[in-house]
């Protein structure tokens, strides 16, 4: 693990989070124990970066900060997480699985649409590049 410490500006650029957001997450307890230099400047280690990446992913799933806080408890100490936290984690897992299923379906639909023949003289431009006139037998 790279134990390089980073200042807030570097973390902000790396993760695409504002410095204000990083300070706020610390204030509300999503990030705990963020280090300081002797002059009081925040320094973030790999563990902090990992938590921040988790927060960012969870936000992309539209989880609230309160929910993320509980999920971070589970992440930090899964064996001793409270029942409520475990239940929330299970619930979020179901939500993610459903979302993943929808995304997979959408990807498949878009793939098919992109591959559809375009009506050019030569037939299907995209497909022609990979198969020429030879058909591929999937099952006999």
């Amino acid at each position, binding site marked *: 693990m790279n134990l390089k410490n980073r200042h807030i500006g570097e973390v902000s650029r790396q993760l695409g989070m504002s410095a204000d957001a990083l300070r706020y997450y610390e204030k509300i307890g999503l990030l705990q124990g963020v280090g300081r230099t002797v002059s009081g400047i925040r320094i973030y280690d790999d563990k902090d970066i990992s938590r921040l990446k988790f927060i960012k992913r969870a936000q992309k799933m539209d989880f609230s900060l309160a929910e993320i806080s509980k999920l971070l408890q589970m992440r930090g100490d899964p064996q001793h997480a409270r029942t409520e936290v475990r239940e929330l984690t299970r619930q979020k897992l179901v939500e993610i699985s459903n979302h993943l299923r929808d995304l997979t*379906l959408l990807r*498949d*639909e878009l*793939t*098919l649409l992109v*591959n*559809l*023949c*375009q*009506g*050019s*003289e030569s*037939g*299907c431009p*995209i*497909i022609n590049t990979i*198969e020429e*006139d*030879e*058909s*591929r*037998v*999937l*099952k*006999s």
Partner: protein
Amino acid sequence: MANSKIKIEVFSAPVCRKCIKTFRLVETVVSELQNDSIELRKVDIVEELDYAIELGLRATPAITINGKLVFTATPTHSDLRVAIQSQLSS
């Protein structure tokens, strides 16, 4: 030879020339086989996108036999004939 009922579906897009060629080929082979157990259907992929995705289609033209994706492009006459005969005898 057993005489199982089989359903052949040719998936095509509205302006796909290869799809037209493929459907004509399938019609020809089905006609040659002279077997009433064969049901042939042309499927407009735009009209039945969900069905196409369900069968695993990612491009047109494509041919399914009894709901299984068998060809992902225009097959040769002999490959198609063999595939259909194989289903008829199974």
